[in-house]
């Protein structure tokens, strides 16, 4: 009843998209994990990364892969500046203040992007070939994007688990006052973490752009904000590898529920929209996760 090519293509897409979801969520998760700030303006930073890749590739012919570190650097600087300009005062402030502040930053970036680059939707083509496998075509640029996402996650994981910086961060997360007592510069840890989180988000935007190559516009990041929230909760807010696992799991969940709803539709002849229902199912999955395992599925 189900076409094997459809299943295979769904699996491949789930895996590739999942990696992208993972790296995007990671950016959100670093900021939350360390500073306890939910970055509602998340989408604006994703958008920024996509534009960086677009301009560097289209206007200067830079290999899109090389734009990822550039995006990271720009995001890092931006995050660092943001911390000292505003968010330093908001660490530990009520939820509402930080939610609104990050929202305002997001609006600011989006509107400036619109004024500077116009609301026109842009895209590019970076064609490096297609792999044909059992009737399913896999686009190499997507594979490369997914691999870059893995590389970024691995790098962040290394940074947080195998370096002195990572040790300091964990100390701060567990007990900010205690960390201060043992001589850790908490303020600096916060600043660098925010910079890292924003850096990863902007880099994630570049990776997303390589994956999609289309639909680059000032408001493109908004849907990814909601998506990243869901995946972050599944991961466990603040979890690094969990972000990746949850991203991939979410990719598979999307694919599986699409297949399932399609079969229900065809079998029962219902007038329903399978692809849209997968979204609904995803959000109910989120609720279920929160109900049964609020600390996330991938948290030790």
């Amino acid at each position, binding site marked *: 009843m189900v076409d094997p090519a459809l299943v295979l293509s769904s699996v491949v897409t789930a895996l590739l998209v999942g990696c992208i979801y993972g790296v995007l969520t990671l950016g959100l998760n670093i900021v939350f994990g360390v500073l306890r700030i939910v970055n509602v303006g998340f989408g604006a930073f994703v958008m920024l990364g996509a534009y960086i890749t677009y301009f560097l590739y289209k206007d200067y012919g830079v290999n899109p892969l090389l734009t990822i570190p550039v995006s990271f650097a720009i995001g890092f600087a931006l995050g660092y500046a943001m911390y000292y300009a505003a968010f330093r005062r908001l660490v530990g402030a009520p939820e509402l203040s930080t939610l609104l502040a990050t929202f305002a930053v997001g609006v600011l970036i989006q509107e400036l992007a619109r004024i500077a680059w116009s609301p026109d939707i842009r895209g590019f083509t970076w064609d490096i070939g297609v792999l044909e496998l059992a009737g399913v075509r896999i686009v190499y640029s997507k594979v490369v994007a997914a691999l870059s996402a893995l590389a970024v996650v691995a790098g962040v994981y290394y940074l947080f688990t195998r370096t002195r910086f990572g040790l300091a961060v964990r100390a701060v997360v567990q007990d900010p006052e205690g960390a201060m007592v043992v001589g850790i510069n908490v303020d600096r840890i916060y600043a660098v973490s925010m910079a890292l989180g924003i850096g990863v988000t902007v880099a994630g935007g570049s990776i997303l752009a390589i994956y999609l190559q289309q639909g680059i516009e000032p408001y493109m990041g908004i849907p990814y904000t909601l998506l990243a929230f869901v995946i972050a909760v599944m991961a466990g807010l603040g979890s690094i590898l969990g972000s990746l696992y949850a991203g991939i799991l979410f990719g598979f969940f999307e694919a599986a529920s699409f297949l399932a709803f399609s079969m229900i539709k065809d079998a029962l002849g219902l007038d329903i929209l399978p692809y849209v229902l997968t979204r*609904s199912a995803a959000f109910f999955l989120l609720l279920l996760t929160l109900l049964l395992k609020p600390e996330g599925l991938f948290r030790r």
Partner: protein
Amino acid sequence: MASGGGLEPLLDTLKAAARKAGPALAVYLVLLAAYFIFPERRQLIATILFYALLGGAFNIFMGMTGYVDFGYVAFLAMGAYGMAIAFTYMADLGYWAIPVGFAIGAILASILAGIVGGIALRLRGAYFAIATIGVNEGIRFLIEGGNLLGGSVGLLFAGKIKEALGDDGFKMITSTGSDLILFGLAFLTVAVTALILSTRVGFALQAIREDEDAAKALGINVTKYKLIAFTTSAVLASLLGATFWSLKGNYVEPARVFNIHYTVEAIIVVMLGGAGTLLGPLVGAVIYQGFNFALNTYVAPFLRELGIHALGIHLPIFALILLAVIVAMPEGIVGYLRARVRSRVLREVLA
């Protein structure tokens, strides 16, 4: 029936509530007067009212408990759908469709509040915020994907209202009628907020806001009071959605009525004015909408005359101002003033 001793505390409570409600009621009365004196500004006043109520109903829960319900807009959607259902499927009720619509909306919102409250209110902080987003989006995509109630197209029912109320009834209810209901809702919201603030519920909520664990230790039934505030806020929001989106707008479209943007706007309105205060949302709404309208309809054309093309320049400016308010006055404009005004009377007015 009640003895004098039983009546007195009740009267005291009512007096306290009236004193609290006074200033906000006065401002709404001024707006009501303006509504009749300046007929060419009615829609602007109605829009400001919408935002004041959007913030006002949000404030009851968020302002008093500190919980941020990102899925708040879903309650407005419930109300909007309730009214839409009443007219779309029960147009032969005539004017009775209006109370029926409000009732359906309020019931849907209460059920939703019960479910969300039961699940999500166990969570705190960011987890609560994200869970409520999940509920909102889950319902939206369920309606769209399941092709329920018009699916993604939604319900457009101006024709049905005409069928139910006739041409003149339609004109009346989509303009002055719904505007006056908005005023009624405004008074209701102020009264309810003031009552909550002056009773045991308000004190309990305040304790929860300060320190939930301590409140629990003191024997306060935390869940009960949170649910009371949550459901009150939800029902008021549903009445607002039913009035402004359905009676006035006649169009319920899932992509719009479940748009989280409205929650964010509610937060903006509350934060600008001051969380947990009665005047706060009103002040926030006047600034938020008044500022926008003025920039848009007077400043922008004026600049255009000068040959300056600045489409949408007010949005980034607004974002900066918002950021400044959050960083410099975390308690909002009303809260900021209250903390600094020396006069006791004025302080009470701002409470």
